C-alpha cells in the first residue's frame, strides 16, 4: 500500500501518457509535469503568504488577517483578485520594454529552478548530470532581472534597491556555492537525484543525512544564512527596506506585475529551501527508519514547510542589518567559515570511521568558529541593555 501511494503520481503520469500517440508522448509527459509543478508551487505560495502573515501577526502580538473566509484563510484569493484588478501603472520615463520583461523573466527563472529538484521518489522533471550547477546558473540569472527592474523604473529608490540586492546576492552566492561544494564532494556527484540517493539508508533508526556530520551541520547553518540573504528576506531585506528606500527595486511596479515579483521572490525561497533539503536533509527520505511508509513527496513538503516556518520565525525575530554589517558578515565570516567547512569535509572523507573522526572534524569546525568570531568582535563594546520605561 505504501509503495502504491508513494508512486501514485508517477503511475498516474505514465497511465495518462500511455494513451497518447508515440510522437507526442515525451512532450506530453514533460508538459504534464510542468503543469503539476506550476500548480503545486503556486498554491504553496498562496498558502505561505497567509501562514506568514498570521505567523508574523502572532509573533508581533496581533491577530493577522482573519476576515476573509474561515480564520482568514481565503485572504490570498482576495489579494489575488485585488492585484489583478488594480491599474497597471508604468512610470512616464520608464524603459517600457525592460520594465515589462523584468517580472516575467524573474518568474520564468524561478520556475525553472524546480526542474532539478527531486520532490519525491522518481519525481524529478529533469535528472540533469549537472543538476546543482543548473540550479546555481539559473538563480544567478535572477540577479540580472532584479537589476532590470530597478534600472528600468528610472527611480532612485528602485536603482538603490537593485544595487543593494545585486551586491548582496553576489556576496552571498560565494559561500552558498562553496558550502554546496562540500556536499557535492561527499556525494561525488552534481546530480540532485544521486545526492539524495547517497543519503539513503539508516543507522539504527537515524538517517544518514549530511546534516548529521560536523561539516554537514556547519554547512547547513551557513547554507540557511546564505539562502536567507539570497532570497532577500529579513534580516537581510535591505534591498526592499521599506523604512529606507520605499520598496526597493519594485517600488514602481503595481498591480499584476507587483504580484509577479512577490510570486518570484517566494518561488525563489521555496526553491532554495528545496535545494537545502536535497543537499543536507536527505531530500524526500523519511527522517526515521520506521516512517518510510509515508509517501516520499509528503516528506519533502513537510520538510519544506518546516523550513518556511523557520524563515518566518527568523523574520519575526531579527532586526534588519546595516549594509556594512551585511558585507562584513559575508566576506569576513561566511567566506572563511565556508572554506574551513570545505577542508573539514575533505578531512572527514579521508579519516577512518569512528570517534576520532567526529572529534577531529568537530574541533576543525568549532575552534575556527570561536577564534574567528572572537577576532571579529574585538572592538565591540557589548553592554547589558538597560530598559527605560515611562515614569
Amino acid at each position, binding site marked *: 500500500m505504501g509503495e502504491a501511494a508513494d508512486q501514485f503520481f508517477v503511475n498516474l503520469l505514465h497511465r495518462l501518457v500511455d494513451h497518447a500517440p508515440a510522437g507526442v508522448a515525451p512532450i506530453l509527459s514533460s508538459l504534464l509535469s510542468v503543469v503539476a509543478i506550476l500548480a503545486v508551487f503556486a498554491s504553496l505560495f498562496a498558502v505561505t503568504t497567509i501562514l506568514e502573515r498570521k505567523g508574523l501577526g502572532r509573533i508581533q502580538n496581533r491577530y493577522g488577517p482573519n476576515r476573509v473566509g474561515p480564520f482568514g484563510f481565503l485572504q490570498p484569493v482576495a489579494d489575488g483578485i485585488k492585484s489583478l484588478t488594480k491599474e497597471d501603472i508604468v512610470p512616464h520615463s520608464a*524603459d517600457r520594454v*525592460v520594465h515589462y520583461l523584468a517580472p516575467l523573466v524573474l518568474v520564468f527563472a524561478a520556475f525553472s529552478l524546480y526542474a532539478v529538484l527531486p520532490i519525491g521518489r522518481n519525481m524529478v522533471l529533469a535528472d*540533469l*548530470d*549537472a543538476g546543482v*550547477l*543548473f540550479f*546555481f*546558473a*539559473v538563480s*544567478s*540569472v535572477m*540577479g*540580472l532581472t532584479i*537589476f*532590470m527592474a530597478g*534600472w528600468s523604473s528610472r527611480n532612485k529608490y528602485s*536603482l538603490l534597491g537593485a*544595487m543593494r540586492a*545585486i551586491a548582496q546576492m*553576489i556576496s552571498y*552566492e560565494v559561500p552558498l556555492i562553496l558550502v554546496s561544494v562540500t556536499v557535492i564532494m561527499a556525494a*561525488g*556527484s*552534481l*546530480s540532485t537525484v544521486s545526492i539524495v540517493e547517497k543519503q539513503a539508508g539508516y543507522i539504527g533508526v537515524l538517517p544518514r543525512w549530511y546534516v548529521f556530520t560536523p561539516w554537514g551541520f556547519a554547512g547547513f547553518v551557513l547554507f540557511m544564512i546564505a539562502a536567507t540573504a539570497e532570497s532577500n528576506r529579513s534580516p537581510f531585506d535591505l534591498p526592499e527596506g521599506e523604512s529606507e528606500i520605499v520598496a526597493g527595486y519594485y517600488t514602481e511596479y503595481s498591480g499584476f506585475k507587483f504580484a509577479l515579483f512577490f510570486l518570484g521572490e517566494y518561488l525563489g525561497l521555496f526553491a532554495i529551501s528545496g535545494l537545502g533539503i536535497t543537499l543536507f536533509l536527505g531530500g524526500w527520505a523519511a527522517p526515521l527508519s520506521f516512517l518510510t511508509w509515508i509517501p516520499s513527496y509528503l516528506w519533502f513538503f513537510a520538510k519544506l514547510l518546516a523550513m518556511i516556518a523557520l524563515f518566518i520565525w527568523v523574520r519575526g525575530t531579527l532586526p534588519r542589518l546595516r549594509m556594512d554589517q551585511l558585507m562584513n558578515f559575508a566576506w569576513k565570516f561566511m567566506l572563511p567559515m565556508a572554506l574551513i567547512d570545505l577542508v573539514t569535509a575533505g578531512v572527514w572523507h579521508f579519516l577512518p570511521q569512528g570517534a576520532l573522526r567526529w572529534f577531529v572534524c568537530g574541533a576543525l569546525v568549532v575552534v575556527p568558529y570561536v577564534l574567528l568570531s572572537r577576532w571579529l568582535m574585538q572592538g565591540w563594546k557589548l553592554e547589558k541593555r538597560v530598559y527605560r520605561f515611562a515614569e
Partner: protein
Amino acid sequence: MPKDLSERIILLFTIFAILTVTGAVAAMSLRNLVHSVLALTVAFSGLAAVYLLLGAQFVGLAQILVYVGAVAILVVFAILLTRDSGTVPLISGGSWRLLRGSGIVVFAVFGVLAWAICHSSVGRHTVHLSHDTSIYEIGNVMMQRFALPLEIVGALLTVALIGAVTIAMQEKEGRR
C-alpha cells in the same frame, strides 16, 4: 544533410544561432549601454544553449553562471559607475574613415574565415560521439591531467580579484 543530426536538432541549432547572432548584433549596435548589455546576455544564453545542444552540459551551464550571472552584472555595475556612458552614439562624429577602414577589415576577416571553413576538408568527415561525456569524466580529467592548469587558473583568478579591487579602490584612498 548528415544522418547523425536529426531534423529537430538542426531546427534548434538554427533557432539558437539566430538568437545568438541577433543578440550579438544588438549588443554591438544599440545606443543605450544597458540595453546592449541585456542584448549581450541574450547572445551568451543562446551560445550556452548551443553548447548544451552539442552535448557539453558542464560548459553550457558554466557559461550561463559566469557570463550571465557574473560578467554581465559586472559590466552593468561599471556602466552605472561611469556616468558618461548612459547613451552613446553608434559612431562618434567625423570618424567615417575609421568606419570605412574597420568595415573593410571586418568583411575581409569574415570573408577569409567563411571561405576557409567552406573549402577545408575538416567539415566533411565527422566522427560522431558514441557516448555523452559525464561530469564525472570532466572532474577526473580536471584533477589529473589538467591539475596544473587548474591551479594556475585559480592563482590567476585570485590575483585578478585582488588586482581589480586595488585598481578600483586606489583613487578613493588618495583623495581622502
